[in-house]
């Protein structure tokens, strides 16, 4: 049974644990995501959601556990190899390159696709030049997709917070991932922007066919756009299932609202 599962699931995390000093940030966490779904990870503050992302992207080295993506083990990669395996992410506290323009930020998303070495870059002729144009075309497509035209040549540090969130999303899309990890994409956005985000996520899923895992606190967004949900609490898996069922789970309600309920 378990062996069969491993073969058919698109993305799978098994038995993942990581400890920081005395804190067990993740304890034997399992996660399974099918191709084409939007999967939410929810849980109270400090539940270990961001830590899970960091482990997937190899920014933290998990103490134990394995991660499989499209049948390949990705839990031994170097952090910079993750993206070329088709996994891109955004960060909870925006990690943009603040002293660069929106364009340059998004061009950096193309980095993993580069075909030239240092030396052809030094002369900047032929291949290096064509590649640069190709990258720009790719970025323009994403800019159109996310409606960021107005900010194209602005310094990223000077544009509104909501737009910065979109630039980060755009930068991840430029990487042309098959699996996209979004860490609290709606934090800091107002109601209207959150609604726009919900549409964008649907578009990414339907038009680009990218599988998404997102960490989210806004339950409305979760119920609206997600197909499945995993609930974490103190680093442990609490529940797993369809959003509408999970929010009714007494264990989940207890974790969110406290003991009395």
């Amino acid at each position, binding site marked *: 049974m378990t062996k069969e599962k491993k073969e058919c699931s698109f993305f799978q995390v098994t038995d993942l644990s990581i400890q920081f000093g005395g804190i067990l940030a993740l304890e034997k966490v399992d996660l399974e995501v099918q191709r084409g779904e939007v999967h939410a990870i929810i849980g109270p503050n400090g539940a270990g959601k961001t830590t899970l992302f960091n482990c997937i992207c190899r920014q933290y080295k998990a103490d134990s556990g394995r991660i499989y993506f499209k049948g390949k083990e990705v839990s031994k990669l170097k952090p910079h190899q993750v993206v070329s395996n088709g996994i891109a992410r955004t960060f909870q506290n925006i*990690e943009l390159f603040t002293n660069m323009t929106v364009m340059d930020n998004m061009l950096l998303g193309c980095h993993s696709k580069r075909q030239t070495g240092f030396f052809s870059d030094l002369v900047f002729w032929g291949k290096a030049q064509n590649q640069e144009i190709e990258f720009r075309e790719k970025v323009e497509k994403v800019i159109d997709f996310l409606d960021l035209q107005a900010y194209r040549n602005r310094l990223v540090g000077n544009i509104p917070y909501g737009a910065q969130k979109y630039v980060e999303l755009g930068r991840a899309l430029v990487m042309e991932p098959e699996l996209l990890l979004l860490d609290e994409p709606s934090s800091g956005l107002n109601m209207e922007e959150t609604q726009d985000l919900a549409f964008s996520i649907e578009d990414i899923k339907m038009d680009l066919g990218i599988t998404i895992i997102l960490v989210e606190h806004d339950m409305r967004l979760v119920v609206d756009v997600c197909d499945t949900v995993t609930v974490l609490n103190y680093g442990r898996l609490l529940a797993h299932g369809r959003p509408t069922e999970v929010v009714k789970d007494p264990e989940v309600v207890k974790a969110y609202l406290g003991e009395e309920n």
Partner: protein
Amino acid sequence: MRFVKRMNYLQDIQLFKYHSTIGWYLILITAFLAAPLVMGTYWVSLLILIGINIIVALGLNLVTGYTGQVSLGHAAFFAVGAYTSAVLTGKFGVSFWLALPASGVVGALVGIVVGLPALRLKGLYLAIATMGFGFIIEEIIVQWEPITNGVNGLSIKRPSLAAFSLASDKHFYYLVFPIVLLSVLVLKNLLRTSSGRAFLAIRDSETAAESMGINLAVYKTAAFCISAFYTGIAGALFAHFMRFIGPENFTILESISFLVMILVGGLGSVHGSVFGAVFITFLPEGISLSKDYLPTFIGQQAGLQAAVYGLVLLLFIRFEPLGLYGRWLKIKFYFENFPFYKKDTFRKVRKFHRTQKQ
């Protein structure tokens, strides 16, 4: 007011935004080519020193300004380049034209070795580590007498090209100038490609850079390597220009003065490296020229030069942290948008974000 109409992607990656800029640069280059014909030897030798300093400033800016790795050890790369060429040409009779690239390569190799600790160290710690490296090289120069002639220093000959001697400053100028131009062009090219952006990315956020697929180890080492190559070449030129080098040319003060160059000129900008090198090379000359006009109790003061350096640095950091290049941008912006300039355009806006929704 000037506008750029974007018609294709190639336009965005050109070195010059306007056609007229190319014209201006050509005029500038011609002027510099003609300079030795009309200038006295004193000014020509000053121009050569400026050129050498520009090469170092470009290299240092790549590692410190663009990649964000502070280096207080660039005098050491400078020394490695200088001594490599001096020893190769002087002791082993190697042609200068081979010794020059060799100095760059040896510098680059040493740069890789110094780049390795940079993979683990950041900020102040890296600065201290590179400074330590500078002391080590200085000590090696003093102790390794059979090769470096210790504290007595080495004398070096000016090179020649076939039958054509480059012994006079005016001729040497025509050796340095094309190398400076080439250094600027190569760096400019590198910076507008994905390699160049990767350096900047590392400066702004290492975590994000890594998640873009940038191998931090490779890029940090590459930054040190290229930077040291530049500095090594400059060192070789310096040795052959001065005709005499000793350990006193490569002290920590020299490293600091390189750092001041890019700070004053503008961190993370090619223009800034040039401005800074010009400014800092002129400064001591300006000070010694003005000595006669100053009141004696200031003019004859021993530490005058160091004090002026310090003062200049302080004023820049306080009033123009972007350096001379920042000032230049503002002036350019003023003219480009002529009737519409607003005083607060460049004022930093302090922002508060809601990052967490509870």
